């Protein structure tokens, strides 16, 4: 049983290695074929033709983190929903209503975030 499962995912391992080789091969081909004459001007980061002002570590707005937290919650919900989706018919109505309650709890969370204006990108609506 375990060996069978393992045999299924051998292809995944090989795909990972081949994917790495594909990119590495392309970069290696570029290393052989392309000219390499680095100068100081070429090594400057792009900022619309001007010399860049300061480093790039600009502040990122807080709302990105709010969306990241929301994503985390709903992604975990998706992880719970996947095994449920293929099993709930066999278990019966109870399993279905339990999941509805779970979805509703998270839906209220979404509604709260909505009312707080998180979902409208910081605009007052």
């Amino acid at each position, binding site marked *: 049983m375990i060996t069978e499962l393992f045999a299924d995912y051998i292809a995944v391992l090989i795909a990972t290695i081949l*994917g790495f080789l594909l990119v590495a091969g392309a970069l290696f081909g570029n290393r052989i074929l392309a000219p390499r004459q680095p100068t100081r001007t070429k090594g400057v980061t792009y900022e619309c033709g001007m010399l860049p002002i300061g480093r790039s570590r600009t502040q990122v707005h807080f709302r990105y983190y709010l969306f990241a937290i929301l994503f985390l919650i709903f992604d975990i919900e998706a992880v719970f929903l996947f095994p449920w*989706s293929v099993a709930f018919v066999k278990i019966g109505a109870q399993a279905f209503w339990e999941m509805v309650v779970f979805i509703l709890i998270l839906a209220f969370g979404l509604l709260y975030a909505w009312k707080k204006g998180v979902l409208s990108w910081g605009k007052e609506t």
Partner: protein
Amino acid sequence: MSLVLISHNPWLESLARLAIIALLVPVTVIILTWVERKVIGRLQMRLGPMRVGPYGTLQGVADTIKLLTKEDVRPQTADRWVFELAPFVIVVPVFMAVVAIPFTADLFIKNLTLGLFYFVAVSGLSIVGFVMAGWGSDNKYALLGGVRAAAQLISYEIPLVMAILAVAMLSQSLNLAVIVGAQEDTPNIAYQSLAFIIFAIAGLAELYRQPFDIPVAESEVVGGPFVEYSGIRWSMFQLGEFVNLVLISILGSLIFLGGWQWPWSVFDASVPVAAQVAMMAVKTGTFIFFFMWMRASLPRLRIDQMMSFCWQLLLPFAFLQIIINGLVLVYDWPNEILIPLSGAAAAGAVYLTYRAARATGVRYQPGYQTVGSVL
């Protein structure tokens, strides 16, 4: 003799199948770049590429040679390893996702039992690559593009996953071959019109193509996370994007349009392999053409519109589809009920989108303070 040896060793068998894919992937990407330029050219009443080869067919090859022989420049202040590894992190998951995709009933790399779950899990990994590219470049535009990509891709992943989940509920399996087999009579698009619409829109956003090209918008963040990448390193991102385009199209045709099944069972018992491949090509091509058509026709969304569309419209309606499916399945109602229910919900979603698109914004008032910028 050697064929027997290959088919008995799981390592050699997987390697042989994946080597064919590894050869096909660059060829497909080269062809698709030409097809995309040609299609968009025609849609905009231009000719598209015409110079290199007959009707410009060798344009993709010429582009590849040009990119391969172009100098590879890395900014001196860039974070070396993060910058160098970002193309790997974007391309490798895309390549891994191919493992789970069956092309016909017999042509596949590995028929994974949890194929759909595996596909969703692996395709989410590329997001890390965008953030790495944005962070490692030491460029303001790249950083903004990177966080934009992260925000957009993670947001639209949830409606996409929920739409896929709705289909998995209907066929009670996460195996893609079983899901296609369950659509022998009626493709899922009839029962799951709402999930199909959500899948098409969220898929378009996952591919960050117009109108959802906010992370790479030229006029806002000049190419986003890829601004400092040049030559073959840049083309790796392009490769990832186009393979992803093909994968999403194949997935859509598998789970919604019935995959390699012919409509009305044209071939009674067993469909010949050539006919299966032809059917897959037609359905996948339809999806690819749809994505290109959207790119040529629609203007870019604003970032706040894009985010609130995902969270306020797509996500609640995706949950609605899941609950409708659950009700119908658990109380053993006939599947035909799903057609009007899902259709009505889809009509509701389309109406709400139409109303939101037509709504006039808040009028500017003196003394009205906006909160921050739209970046």
